[in-house]
């Protein structure tokens, strides 16, 4: 479904991605792990065309990113941003139904609101939240609304950028379970980026580890604890000593 080959991106003198290769099959939940500042978010943004890579090839369902109708390309994706990225000026239901209120997926407002309420219910939020503004919500509720927005248009591919960052462990567990359930029931292809190992074990079918701009290990989540890969072992067990420098 998603094929990335030799992806490179630098910002000035900083080489963030140095030839990343990754393949995600249809319906698979891939989790990309790695320390802060290793380019995980840049990887997702390159796939979406938000960041233009310096080199490499990205193909979604066999078609290179940037080719063909961009609206049709983006309509296949849903994304949960790290901070939610909800639009402050719009009430919750309009955030969720954003794509359904304009553009090629536009529907009548009543219908869009009904879908928004349904998606909010799916992420555990009642209709009383629909007319609130994002600033009136807690961090956990904002993540849920972001999740509802990501799935509102029934996308084939969903990206989750640090879905549990900033949440307490219980709320993080709730979000992890929701992501796993939604990805499974929608049959969507998912890429999640995180450094939270609880998320990895809850969400992943396969795991890829990004360090210093390259994928250091890729494999099924069941091999996480016996990979024999020194980078992955150090990361999974949170050790200060190992091939990954503690101070980067």
């Amino acid at each position: 479904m998603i094929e990335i080959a030799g992806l490179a991106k630098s910002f000035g003198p900083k080489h963030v991605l140095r030839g990343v290769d990754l393949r995600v099959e249809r319906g698979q939940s891939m989790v990309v792990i790695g320390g802060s500042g290793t380019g995980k978010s840049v990887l997702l943004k390159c796939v979406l065309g938000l960041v233009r890579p310096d080199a490499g090839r990205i193909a979604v369902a066999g078609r290179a990113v940037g080719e063909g109708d961009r609206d049709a390309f983006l309509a296949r994706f849903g994304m949960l941003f790290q901070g939610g990225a909800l639009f402050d000026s719009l009430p919750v239901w309009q955030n969720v139904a954003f794509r359904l209120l304009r553009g090629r997926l536009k529907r009548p407002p009543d219908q869009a609101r009904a879908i928004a309420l349904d998606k909010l219910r799916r992420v555990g939020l009642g209709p009383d939240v629909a007319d609130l503004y994002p600033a009136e919500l807690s961090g956990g509720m904002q993540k849920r609304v972001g999740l509802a927005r990501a799935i509102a248009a029934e996308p084939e591919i969903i990206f989750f950028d640090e879905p549990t960052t900033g949440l307490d462990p219980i709320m993080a567990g709730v979000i992890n379970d929701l992501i796993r359930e939604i990805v499974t029931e929608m049959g969507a292809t998912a890429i999640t980026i995180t450094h939270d190992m609880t998320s990895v074990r809850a969400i992943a079918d396969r795991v890829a580890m990004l360090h210093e701009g390259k994928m250091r290990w890729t494999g099924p989540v069941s091999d996480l604890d016996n990979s024999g890969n020194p980078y992955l072992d150090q990361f999974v067990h949170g050790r200060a000593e190992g091939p990954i420098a503690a101070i980067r």
Partner: protein
Amino acid sequence: MNPLAAIGRPVLAVLAGLGRIAIFTFATLSHLFRPPYYPREFALALLNVGYNSLPVVGLTALFTGGALALQIYAGGARFSAEAVVPQIVAIGMVRELGPVLVGLMIAARVTSSIAAEIATMNVTEQIDALVTLSTDPAKYLTLPRVLAGLVAVPALVGVGDVIGILGGFLVGTAELGFNRATYLRNTAEFLQTADILSSLAKGAVFGLIATLMGCYFGMTSGRGAQGVGRATKSSVEAAAVLILAANFLLTALFFST
């Protein structure tokens, strides 16, 4: 350090900045001819740029018109020309002070708020979220605000001109002993259509500059709170300087013989 390099570097930086702003302007205006359009965003921008600016524009014009009347009366008295207060207040407000003061007030009030809002959206990934939701930020955020500036600021200038003349009229009749009917007749007879049209044209250009600067610096902001602060400050500085420069060029264009 080479002194020529010290001069050349900032000059090149300013020219590069102007080039980027020019490209941003053309790219924004090109969306005028390419749907989709967002009428709700335009209406909200119109409300923010136009209607919500009325109090500050009105008060600024009122006090300026009053002060202008006092200054012209005091200055005119030195060569027995106190009687020209209505004419000079009218021409001063309509040709220069109305558009410039409204432009600067819009730069302070609207440019800053647009830059801060869009820069915050940038920092919190809301702009990226717009793109992933198949919505072009240039069409959804920039064009409605720029069009609102283009439409609302001339209207504000018109209102400011009238209130400024009213300020002069109130001071002239209540304090300086002018007859009400004579004051109004002198104002109306002296003003020409070209004065009013030039005032409104300046308003349109200043509205374009003010909103474009807010959008440009918001869209290109750096990261974090510092990035938002810097974008806001730079947008107001650029808008104010460009408005004053444009005012000079437009005055030369309209009125130099």
